[in-house]
């Protein structure tokens, strides 16, 4: 059972790093200092807390059926999302997945945007076109993902190829899950980026499951860094629930990419404590497994302990918690006031030219499209 093996292979504090070089595996020393100022250390705590608080709010809204479509949690994975994204510069570009709400917050997405997205409002980033956190902003440096797993890897290979061709001092980071590593797109994209020595970092979030499928059914390899040598790139494996370690290992990979040293595969070992989406009852999870991770290895609790040990005062951390809640409260109120989309907006912007698709003949001069009884009884719950 891979999750079991995570316990044996991943040590808690102090963390250690496994490096696999493209020539037979060598082991590097763990990083020493964190290079993080006290303010930055509090920052990391804030982003993790904000992620969790916002997701908890989304659960409440979901239960009130105010969320359209599925709800995806990153409970227990906040450290891997926040720590890795925190290693990027504002000019860098990242491609998040459904578990990377935290990464998006770090990169500048706001709780208000995310709430409007989940509630399918007309003033949400996609104006009600795409689900949950499937949105992006090239200005702030994150690309809107699509559902088809693996596809973002070739796309980010191209994003980073453009950085290289234009000699820009920018790096790209692409997230993939353990499951997504099985896709052809992952393989083609990482290989192309490796050959082109694109300034790209591939973060494999190994959270033990792909939907209901445990990692051992996803790959026969013991870990995902083992894939690095096959692409001739550097690979690193890290405890994904240690936010500082995650930051360090990602930062090093980002710095190397920036320095022209090409692609690094960073495997972050973590655990998906909730189901694939809210509707998933996790019947397939061995008893005690979730509870164990919750009790022994919650990334927020762990980091709080680290900061307290480091001398940060408890009230200071409580203040951060309060601030996060206040921000989420305010955002929720505003999001609830947001308008629903205007139906006719559905036709605009498939192409730059023509600006809108024609309204079809059977719709001309029709005001109300849908008769009440036609509205599906349930909106159902559909996955990532």
């Amino acid at each position: 059972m891979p999750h079991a093996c995570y316990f044996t292979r991943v040590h808690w504090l102090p963390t250690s790093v496994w490096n696999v070089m493209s020539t037979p595996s060598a082991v590097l020393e763990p990083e020493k200092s964190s290079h993080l100022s006290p303010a930055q250390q509090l920052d990391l705590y804030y982003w993790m807390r904000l992620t969790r608080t916002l997701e908890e709010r989304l659960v409440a809204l979901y239960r009130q059926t105010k969320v359209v479509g599925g709800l995806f949690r990153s409970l227990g994975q906040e450290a891997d999302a926040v720590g890795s994204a925190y290693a990027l510069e504002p000019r860098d570009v990242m491609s998040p997945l459904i578990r990377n709400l935290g990464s998006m917050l770090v990169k500048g997405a706001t709780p208000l945007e995310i709430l409007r997205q989940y509630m399918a409002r007309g003033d949400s980033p996609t104006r009600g076109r795409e689900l949950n956190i499937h949105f992006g902003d090239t200005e702030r440096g994150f690309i809107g993902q699509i559902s088809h797993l693996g596809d973002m890897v070739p796309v980010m290979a191209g994003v980073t190829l453009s950085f290289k061709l234009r000699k820009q001092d920018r790096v790209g980071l692409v997230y993939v899950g353990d499951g997504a590593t099985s896709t052809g797109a992952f393989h083609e994209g990482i290989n192309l980026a490796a050959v082109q020595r694109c300034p790209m970092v591939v973060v494999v979030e190994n959270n033990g499951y792909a939907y209901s499928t445990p990692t051992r059914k996803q790959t026969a390899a013991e870990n995902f860094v083992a894939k690095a040598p096959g692409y001739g790139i550097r690979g690193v494996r890290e405890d994904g629930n240690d936010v500082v370690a995650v930051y360090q290992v990602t930062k090093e990979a980002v710095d190397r990419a920036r320095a022209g040293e090409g692609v690094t595969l960073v495997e972050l070992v973590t655990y998906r404590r909730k189901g694939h989406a809210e509707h998933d009852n996790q019947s397939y999870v061995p008893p005690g497994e979730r509870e164990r991770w919750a009790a022994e290895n919650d990334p927020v609790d762990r980091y709080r302990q680290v900061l307290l040990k480091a001398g940060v005062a408890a009230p200071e951390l409580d203040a951060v918690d309060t601030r996060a809640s206040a921000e989420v409260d305010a955002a929720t109120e505003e999001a609830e006031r947001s308008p629903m989309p205007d139906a006719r907006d559905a036709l605009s912007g498939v192409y730059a030219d023509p600006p809108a698709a024609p309204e079809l003949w059977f719709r001309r001069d029709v005001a109300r499209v849908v008769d009440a009884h036609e509205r599906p009884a349930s909106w159902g719950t559909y996955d990532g």
Partner: protein
Amino acid sequence: MAEVTYLEAIRQGLFEEMERDADVFCLGEDIGAYGGAFKVTDGLLERFGEQRVIDTPISEAAIIGAAAGAAHMGMRPVCEMQFIDFISCGYDMLTNYVATARYRAFLPCPMVVRGPSGGYVRGGPFHSQNPEAAFLHTPGLKIVYPATASDAKGLIKSAIRDEDCVLFFEHKYLYRRIKEELPTGDHVVPIGKARVAREGRDVSVVTYAATVWKALEAAEQLEKEDGLSVEVIDLRSLAPMDDEAIVATVKKTNRVLVVHEDTVTGGVAGEITARINELAFEWLDAPVRRIGAHDVPLPYAPALEDFVLPQTSDIVRGVRWLAGY
């Protein structure tokens, strides 16, 4: 006898075929312990074991390719696409390898690729697709898309028994909304035969899958409000297509509305219109008209999805237009 949902009907069909033939096995993502994203394969693992209900990595091309390889060796694989939208990842494998196997290399390829399809469910652009048009164009593939529980069961059984590759599209909006009593015994529905879902004299609606129900709803309303008698043809199979049934209804009503949920441009309705033109032009008292989704990716916000997709009220307007032509 108890009523059975569209979803349960498919499950029964799979179950019965696996009982009947040891060469039938299922492969796909999360179909084992979890029973599939929609629970279509629920209980199969318990009954048939890990050897015949295989959880795969996230690899649609490999799922389809491996099914083809096993089929060459005499097995009868049934592939689940977790959502049919992901069949696009196996497009090369299906259109180039599978569809040509018998013709170019005399390799039998009896296999089924099935999965939840279609919209009206707030699934957004990547969990609502209707992929039939992309495959209708490829000789070597068969395509079915049932609208009723009874057809769903009868067609999945035929698909599994067919000597060639059958794409079996299941409409997820119908999964739990459609309930029927099913015929007892070994209930098989032949591939390639349409069904008259409702007899009528004035206008024909030719359609399939979820819009069959919208067409029937419209027919009701038109009978009440306009006294129009609308015939509804449920194609059930798209490849091969039942030309006889199509021509028969054209000759009967002389006015045809072709309806599908998929986007209009490049959709299956174009093919149907062309066939009517070729086979029954002289019988047409009005142009064949098409109703389908607007030509945009499917947005997920309710107001937007409802606007983009064809609705009962659209069919009502379309039929009225044809009746008044």
